[in-house]
């Protein structure tokens, strides 16, 4: 997956977790928490969805890397670059 693909996948996950949020206006450099109504349970879901969909294990200490879209994509790129986009 390219960084663009990973970004699309994260958007898809956010869509399933928080269907009422408007995701079209997301600013990649701003923390999710500051622009979406996400709580700690939602962040757990991002991690769990990645595990379910792509078998990626993210240790709890690394959850902080998922703060914004930019940091998430940067963090996931080495983990997901070999995954084929479905």
């Amino acid at each position, binding site marked *: 997956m390219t960084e663009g693909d990973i970004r699309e996948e994260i958007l898809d996950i956010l869509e399933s977790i*928080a*269907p*009422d949020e408007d995701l079209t206006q997301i600013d990649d450099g701003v923390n999710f928490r500051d622009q979406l109504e996400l*709580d700690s*349970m939602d962040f757990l879901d991002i991690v*769990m969805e990645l*595990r379910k969909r792509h078998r990626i294990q993210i240790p709890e200490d690394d959850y902080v890397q998922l703060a914004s879209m930019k940091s998430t994509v940067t963090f996931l790129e080495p983990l997901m670059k070999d995954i084929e986009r479905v």
Partner: protein
Amino acid sequence: MYDTIIIGAGMSGLAAGIRLAYFEQRVCILERHTTIGGLNSFYRMRGRDYDVGLHALTNITPRGTKRGPLARLLKQLRLTRDELQIAPQLGSEVVFPGVRLRFSNDFELLRAEIAREFPQQIDNFERVVSEIVEYDDLDESHQAVSARQKLGEIISEPLLIEMFFCPLMFYGSAREHDMDWGQFSIMFRSIFMEGLGRPYAGVRLILKHLVRKFRGLGGELKLRSGVERLAVEGGRVCGVVLDSGEELRADRVLSSAGWLETMRMCDDGQPVSHRGAGQLSFCETIATLDVQPEKIGHRSTITFFNDSKKFSWKKPDEPCDVHSGVICSPNNFDYGGQRLEEGTMRITALANFDYWNDLSEYDYEMEKLRWYDRITDSGVRFVPDYRHRVIDTDMFTPATVVRFTGHEGGAIYGTPEKQFDGRTHLDNLFVCGTDQGFVGIVGSIVSGISMANRHCLKG
């Protein structure tokens, strides 16, 4: 071999099961009773459907609200608001001698009522509200501050304090006389600031969605499968032994059976940590009417009443305490043009478990009839008299609560000492549901979700 075994197919167990099955765990929910729901179950008798626990769902925020327990549980269970078909209340009230405070899902009504009935207290009331708003319900410290003490410092009219306690204790205090400030804040928000609602089809609808979702994700549900004991080896649960003798193995167990009840299941000889069993139980009368309640002048959804200025919240010495109660009419929700076929009036009153438990079968039936009348006679002092329109009745007692929940002493809200972190003396045994800390339907579901997330999903 399962990843997680869940004990109890009530709201919390089913919610936890959905979370785990959604993330591909092998999950099995074991339920001793012949049906699901636990305290919030249902039954059918003489051709009529009855709900056991549910009067109303709390935490009913307007559609599109992104915060709060209801929004959280919908997101976490991947349910939509439409699936639950929640109809808002028409309006409820707290009635004490000479004072009636109405409230609805619009908090401004309660504000206006307090300004009218207690004009001297309105500023103090606003101070209480701002403290309640600030209280963080995910904060574990759960300030074990006395709500009585805290309110007494701010509000100088004791009657108003009693009028807050009456509904909040009836809908969720396991502790006699007082509540923790944290629990008070959570309950105050969920009932007064968010609101009440009910699905047209009652609790069945909620349970149906939860079970369908759980099974659709591959979860297993076994009814008539009581857990006789938990097999413990080297500080860990390695499996459960059912009443039938069958053994099931699992990496971890999440129990909604109650704290004491779960501790007693452990076969490791560990002394059951002393924790007071809950003392508070209920009787409830259920009357079916040949008329819609509004036709006889009753429009209130829930009426909380108390017949003196001081509200008593303790196990009564009498079989039932008829001085106070909760009158609920499931007809009085806004079902958007639909209406329930028959009128229903339910009255809940505090009851003494030991009395009801010790009766012979014959006396039990007689006492049910006797106390049905006493509770109803008490209730109709506060709502229009409906006794001449009754076409069918039923009544549940603390013994019924035991049958549906398995809670020792018929403790409706479990033990007063909650286990907020859900942990036990064993590494892979956790508790959820009533004794973890949250009560009510929404609270139980959130409990199941948060304990599943915290103890069963991570790692």
